């Protein structure tokens, strides 16, 4: 049974009120690792290098029982990487990500930042080189993948320093990413995917072709999944001059069906190309979102 006091399982908006991104991410990761008892991203290392203090979430099989017997302290054995995992987090900072359907929820961007920070922390803890690219219609921040101390805070600063953009040009950012990733690794895209699916898939397929493992977090506010609102409303696209007048009540069913089709289309296309796809609503606890990767 889930421990409802665990921070990773609380409502994301409530968790966000606890502090800054780093505090939230650390809390989430602690709770998350305590919950699953094993790291979702097992290292590729096979040769022992050093001991470190046991942390909740570490697999018991890596405990050094001899040290425990001698000193009654918990240490786990760490192994040297044979091949370093290079993880690059791609965070969509477009205008549409700054939207939320209700004041009590996080914007998609805020949710993405915290989810990316938590992911980065998990990766860095297992000494995977982790980098960050933020983008809207252009690439805004590029933090190369590193594993050195302070990398996580650099990543946090990179997220904080990226303002909300205007349009979205994911394919540009993804193409730029291909140039930055000389070695194959892990690419995690956190976006609302409100751009041309064909173009975006072309870029992602290219990455996949280059040997990268690609994970896509498709963020969506619950209000984007179920249409609601006043009897008649003019909906305006925050990223373009486009607008449309609709009666949410009479279009709700058709809209929900369209969204379902779109998500299904993304999932099918990603699966076809070996891309992990996860549809995440912004009211989903961070721990649950991370668990999707386990």
């Amino acid at each position: 049974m889930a421990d409802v006091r665990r921070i990773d399982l609380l409502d994301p908006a409530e968790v966000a009120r606890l502090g800054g991104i780093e505090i939230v991410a650390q809390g989430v990761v602690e709770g998350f690792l305590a919950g699953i008892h094993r790291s979702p991203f097992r290292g590729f290392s096979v040769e022992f290098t050093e001991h470190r203090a046991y942390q909740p979430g570490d697999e018991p099989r890596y405990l050094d029982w001899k040290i425990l017997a001698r000193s009654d302290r918990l240490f786990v054995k760490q192994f040297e990487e044979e091949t370093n995992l290079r993880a690059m987090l791609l965070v969509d900072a477009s205008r549409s990500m700054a939207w939320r359907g209700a004041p009590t929820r996080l914007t998609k961007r805020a949710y993405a930042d915290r989810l990316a920070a938590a992911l980065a922390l998990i990766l860095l803890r297992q000494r995977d080189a982790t980098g960050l690219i933020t983008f809207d219609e252009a690439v805004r921040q590029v933090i190369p993948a590193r594993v050195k101390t302070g990398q996580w805070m650099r990543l946090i600063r990179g997220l904080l320093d990226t303002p909300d953009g205007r349009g979205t040009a994911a394919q540009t950012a993804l193409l730029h990413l291909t140039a930055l990733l000389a070695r194959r690794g892990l690419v995690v895209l956190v976006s609302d995917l409100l751009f041309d699916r064909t173009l975006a898939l072309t870029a992602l397929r290219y990455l996949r072709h280059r040997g990268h493992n690609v994970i896509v977090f498709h963020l969506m506010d619950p209000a984007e999944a179920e249409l609601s609102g006043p009897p008649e409303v003019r909906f305006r696209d925050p990223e373009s001059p486009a607008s449309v007048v609709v009666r949410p009540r009479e279009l709700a069913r058709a809209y929900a069906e369209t969204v379902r089709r779109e998500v299904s289309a993304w999932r099918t296309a990603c699966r076809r190309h070996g891309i992990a796809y996860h549809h995440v609503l912004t009211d989903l606890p961070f721990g649950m979102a991370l668990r999707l990767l386990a």
Partner: protein
Amino acid sequence: MTFLHPLALIGLAAAAIPALLHLLERRVPPEAEFPPIRYLSEAERQNARRLKLRHLLLLILRTALIALIVMAAARPLVRSRAAGGGGVHEPTALVLILDNSPSSGAVVDGRPLLARLKSVARASIARAGSGDRVWLMLADGVARAGSREALLATVDSVEPGWRRLDLTTAVARATRLVDAEPLPGREVEVVSDLQRTAFGEGRADIPRGVRVLALAPPGQVVANRGVAQARVTDGAVAITLAGTPGGGPAPVTVRLRATASPVGRSRDVGRALASTGSSASVPLPSMAPGWWIGEAVLDPDELRADDRRAFVWRVSPPARVRADPSAGPFVTAALAVLTQGKRVAEGTDVSLGERLQGDAGKTVLLPPADPALVGQANRALAARGVRWRFGASATPGPVATARLAGINGIPVARRYRLEGGDTTTVIATVNGDPWLVRDGDVVLLGSRLDTVWTALPASPAFVPFVDALVNHLARGEAPIGEEEGPAGVLFQVHGADTVGATVSGPDGRESDLTPARADVVRRAIGAEVQDEAQFAAERFAGTRRADVSGLLLALALLVAAVELGVATRAR
């Protein structure tokens, strides 16, 4: 189709509200950011045709809903063929003839006939709507207008009356009345026992478009007999019975009561057997001078109103007569006989001769024996203000009179034609010429009372004739009238004297309770005779309409449900 409340149709303009709202409502909707607008556009593009159809359907449904509700409020009426008295009808002018003539008091199957008639009349009035114009006509022939409640109260208070109702006349008047009303429906309902005697010889002229309904009489013909007439003539009362044909003779009792006697005290003075349609005579005893009231009474039967009838007569004191010698020996001899019988006395009340006695009292004037004195007699008559005069000698012939039955047919050999007076004062004629007349205080004879002039002095009727001449004709008789009303006598007084009387009772035709045949009714008043069920079904049937507002409301409800379903289905 017609409407009970056509003004409500103005509300149909409201049916345009949905369309107007659709066309005119161009309010600026609130704006909101919505990133996945591409999904929205896609959903709208794929559903545009369905949404347009839905909007059109909703517009039609809402317009139809308002139109249906407005039309239901206007209470639409469509022609109905449904049997029974239900439904509504167009405004109708109705005259309800409720026959409360004396015959309606008959008891049929233990129930007063009028109660049945009132029940049917109540039902007719109760079915009348606010747009109808209703009159109630009773046996008195007066058409009473009023509200439904007032007419119902009038019907409730109706009792058997004393007036005979001529249905032919009543229906003719009623049809004229409703025909003058500018209403879609015009109807006359005859609620009566439909006595055959209630229809005259003529026929009512029924205007086009006026329906006449007649309630069928009870199937059972009620046996009844009643006293149609009772008159005192020559010391006897002649009683005529009327009623439903058939049945044997019935006993009639004659009772007498002096006017001075306390009310209710009477005594039987005779009894006779009489059949329906025949007369019987019951001798009256010699009575002291004065007014006398009698009553002819039958045994009670189903119609009590005609079981007794009053009669009245006056017994006068002997006239005091002075006969002039010129009157002749026959007159003198007759007066001697009458004096001996105390029918006359010596006096100057009445003088009898060939000369007028100045301005004194009553005179029976005979033509002078000498033709040369005729002119003098005529001048004397003129001087007395008598318009009659002796004319030329005229042809012989028999006497004809209705008032002095005994002298009818007695030959007259010589006579003067009586001229110049009012024919209403003629008492007897010969060959159509006035022979015995009365003008004021003067009774004028065209022949002398002598066997040379007429055979009357030699006949047995002479003494009674002289008796009538001096006691009745010369002195004059108090008028006794007859009229419809409850059995009784009404006296006319002048000062301290009783100068006449009126005997009232039901019309003798009311006693015959035989209903008229259907063809007679149809011919006389143009109505089909219908039993109570048919009558109720045909009442207002000419303009009966079914109110379909309920159906429209149900349809509106259905449309509202469909509208709700369509409006919420896509939500």
